[in-house]
């Protein structure tokens, strides 16, 4: 119960008063970082935690070792002809590998080393801008200070700062974010078999858009939960809504089929004109089947 209501509350709070997040920095530990763009839109980035970054680091470490090994093999062959030059080149490669691997990869490939790319991480400036050469160099030179005691210093500062920044990030003003893959928003759930509520059964209360969106998203994700759990969660909202609406229809419908009830509430209030409904019913034909089956 609390979970649904809380999420609804926080959603409305952040929606109605986004500026609050800037005036008074939130104390809660959060994986979200918010910045404001020149278009006056607040953007949210998801920060990457220490564990993810550790995995990315291990991948990069493996790659760096592989580069050294590969270079050693090639150098050995060149060394037959020019032994001194070969060793010189190898040492330079070793230097670049130690001090330059991250700088080059992050500075010139949009903030992603190979390990970060694999893990879906990216380094950006904390203003939301892409990282450039100098900050990339700075954050990766300071890496050698972070790396003291097996990255003990880096991990400690990471845990002490709100944005999981190690010393190098703090100096260079960068954050590591997790990139989400773009996915088109799901088509709204279309419920052909569901009838809207009878206008005579309900009072004048109109649920807010947030509540309708909540129902929509809840039904879109109902496969995630077991049937019983989904049923129980839906029951809480259905009961509340039925009370607010002064629902005087079949009380069994609220008790026995809370999901179906929510769906009909959704249908009652989100489609004010019948023709809109038809347009959508046509556009998302394949969805119908699944909806019918699981809603029972």
């Amino acid at each position, binding site marked *: 119960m609390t979970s649904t209501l809380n999420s609804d509350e926080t959603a409305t709070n952040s929606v109605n008063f986004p500026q609050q997040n800037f005036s008074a920095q939130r104390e809660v530990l959060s994986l979200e970082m918010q910045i404001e763009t020149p278009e006056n*839109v607040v953007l949210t*980035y998801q920060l990457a935690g220490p564990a993810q970054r550790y995995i990315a680091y291990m991948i990069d470490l493996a790659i760096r070792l592989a580069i050294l090994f590969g270079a050693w093999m090639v150098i050995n062959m060149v060394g037959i002809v020019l032994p001194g030059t070969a060793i*010189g080149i190898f040492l330079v490669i070793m230097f670049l590998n130690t*001090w330059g691997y991250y700088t080059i990869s992050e500075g010139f490939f949009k903030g992603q080393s190979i390990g970060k790319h694999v893990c879906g991480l990216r380094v950006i400036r904390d203003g939301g801008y892409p990282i450039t050469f100098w900050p990339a160099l700075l954050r990766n030179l300071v890496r050698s200070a972070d790396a003291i005691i097996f990255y003990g210093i880096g991990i400690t500062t990471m845990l002490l700062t709100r944005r999981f920044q190690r010393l190098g990030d703090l100096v260079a003003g960068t954050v590591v974010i997790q990139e989400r893959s773009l996915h088109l928003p799901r088509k709204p759930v279309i419920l052909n078999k569901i009838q809207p509520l009878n206008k005579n059964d309900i009072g004048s209360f109109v649920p807010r858009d947030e509540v309708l*969106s909540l129902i929509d998203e809840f039904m879109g994700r109902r496969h995630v939960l077991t049937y019983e759990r989904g049923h129980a969660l839906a029951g809480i909202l259905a009961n509340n809504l039925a009370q607010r609406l002064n629902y005087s229809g079949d009380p069994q419908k609220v008790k026995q089929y809370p999901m179906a009830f929510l769906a009909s509430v959704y249908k009652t209030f989100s489609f004010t004109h019948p023709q809109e409904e038809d347009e959508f019913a046509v556009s998302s034909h394949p969805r119908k089947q699944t909806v019918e089956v699981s809603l029972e």
Partner: protein
Amino acid sequence: MNKHKFIQQRQPHWKQFEDFLMDVRRNSFARLPAEEISKYSQLLREVSNDLATIRSRGWGHDLISYLNDLVARGHNLFYGAPPANLAGVYHYLAVGFPQLFRANIGYFLTACLLFFLPLGISWYVVQNNPSLATRVIPEELMANFDLMYGEESPLNKEEEKITDEEDAFLSKESTFGDQRASMAGFYINHNVGIALQCFALGILLGIGTIYTLLFNGIFLGAVSGYIVSQGNGERFLSFVISHGSFELTAIAVAGGAGLMLGNALIHPGQRTRFQSLQVRGLEAVQIAGGAAVMLVVAALIEAFWSPSSIPNLVKYVVGSGLWILVFIYLGFAGLQADTQPLPVRKKERSKPTEVGFNGGRKS
């Protein structure tokens, strides 16, 4: 407006913007025609507007996060810095680095004090009392130095190898240049690494930098004192003078940059500590980058010029010339350039600015 109607209306635009983002990822942003760019920058504003609309009306988290990511990527693209190019590198070396260096010369002078003073003291002490050298230098290294700069020194006979260790990996027929190349690699790897570390450790309130400077100063002083006390001073000085100009100065420069980092934390001034760290850090890293370039130059000189069998007199002349060159470069390069580097005037810089002004009058 109804949520569904809104989505239906706007979705083609989102899709279009998404395709554009995918397209740019594959091709370069710079290759797009101008009208395309302005068209898509307008589309970015539209999508931003949609995001604000949807967020204020509470039309679902899925939709918000989708649009959020769309705008974030667009933002990343349109507000990115212009790509770096070779002209930028030249400008940095000719103007940006020396200017930044002079603007923060107080740190450099402090680093010089921390580096050259112990160097001089330990040189003096060890030269007069060579037995003390064992306290600083490991035994086998001392044996090496005797070999390097002694009568049998390869500085006299260039065709031979420098140390016994090198026999392991250098075959007999390797030529002078070839052998030198390996040493160049070694100097780059070793010296630049030390300088960069010296800079980076400055973030630990400057302690790491101070330690590195003191340690290297004492060590180098002891080595020099020991070698000179063994009667090999002539060979040693002629070897060291040329590349020392770039090398020793660059170590102090890198150390100064490290002190800048530490001082940004200790004396943040009007800013918060993190802000001050960011602002000064960006200057400091550009100074450290310059020091790294200087050290690469030093490594090349040290490998190819210093050990060659050129008369000592020529080496001394050229070496002094290089010292003057370094002085002129750091003191006067980029003085006339219009672009001023973010000068945050500080009290402790009163002395350095004098130097700068003098230079201005001369040039």
